[in-house]
């Protein structure tokens, strides 16, 4: 009888622990996870940021174009690895209405490095100076690279956290944003 009671207590404790872990797992699944589309179907939050020359750019000014919003930094090797892929996408799909936009998350004091990196790598799209406020609008951007693909009406069609498997994965999302098969 005592053994049965002990088993019931042990079972009860295990069920409570299990429930707690399940709740934690469900909560974590609701957070952005690398490579997962989390904001699909929602309009991208509006922002205005300045480029390295101080010229402002409002996201709304790009309405009618498919937009790639790439949060990156010069201290992030996977970010730098995918920059040539975005340059290639801008070259290949720019005429069809693609606009890549880089949002740089380096410290303000490192903007010379950002400009130099852009020049050395032939960056053919605007590099904007990121702000924490904008990162928060986009879910916090806890890690880099983080990339949002917007269709021509400004709706997020894909959201990718981390380094994609290669340029083909970037191109797949670019074509999705452009409405191409």
């Amino acid at each position, binding site marked *: 009888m005592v053994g049965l009671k002990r088993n019931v207590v042990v*079972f009860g404790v295990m069920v409570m622990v299990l429930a707690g872990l399940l709740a934690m797992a469900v909560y974590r699944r609701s957070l952005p996870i*690398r490579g997962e589309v989390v904001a699909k179907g929602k309009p991208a939050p509006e922002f205005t940021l300045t480029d390295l020359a101080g010229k402002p750019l409002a996201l709304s000014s790009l309405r009618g174009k498919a937009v790639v919003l790439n949060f990156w930094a010069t201290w992030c090797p996977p970010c*730098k690895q995918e920059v040539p892929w975005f340059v290639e996408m801008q070259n290949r799909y720019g005429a069809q209405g693609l606009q890549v936009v880089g949002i740089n998350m380096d410290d303000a004091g490192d903007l010379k490095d950002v400009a130099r990196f852009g020049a050395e790598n032939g960056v053919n799209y605007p590099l904007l100076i990121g702000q924490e406020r904008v990162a928060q609008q986009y879910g916090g951007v806890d890690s880099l690279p983080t990339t949002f693909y917007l269709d021509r009406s400004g709706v997020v069609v894909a959201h990718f956290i981390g380094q994609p498997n290669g340029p083909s994965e970037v191109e797949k999302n670019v074509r999705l944003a452009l409405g191409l098969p």
Partner: protein
Amino acid sequence: MKLISRITLALVSLLTAFAVAQGSSPNITVAPVPTVVVTRGGHAQLTLELRVNRGFHVNSNHPYDELLMPTTLRLNAPDGIMIANLKYPEGQDLVLPFMNNQKLNVYSGAFVVTADVRPARTVAFGTERVHGAVKFQACDDRQCFPPRTVPFEFDVKVIRPVVHKAPAKNADSPHIHP
């Protein structure tokens, strides 16, 4: 009942592993530093044991790419105590699948940084607290995380130099000859 308990236990273990895997974020921990005991005017070695948590790496103190942030330690020594000659270990070369054979130089797992602790000849005897911080920027194989600074502290105890007294001269000693 035993069967139910075993199944529940197995599920708990699985979910724990899942939750741990999902919840990990990059960090460096600094092992507690024993009090550094050093004589006034002398010197002692400080040994700091650091660990990058599993699944992440940080740049070494000398990353190959100048744009990458080196891992650095800052030590705010109190007046009269000099902490110098900070020695970082060599990093390990790492080539990630997406890097086109570009090497990174990183620390992962445990690594040790040493320094010399040198109290001035005029410093008061006693224990002083040293505040330090390690600044790092971590990545895993696909993504990078913003730079972080983790504080730590340890004590330095300055003691009197041990004076080895020479044996008193004895005029009657047979070894002393006038």
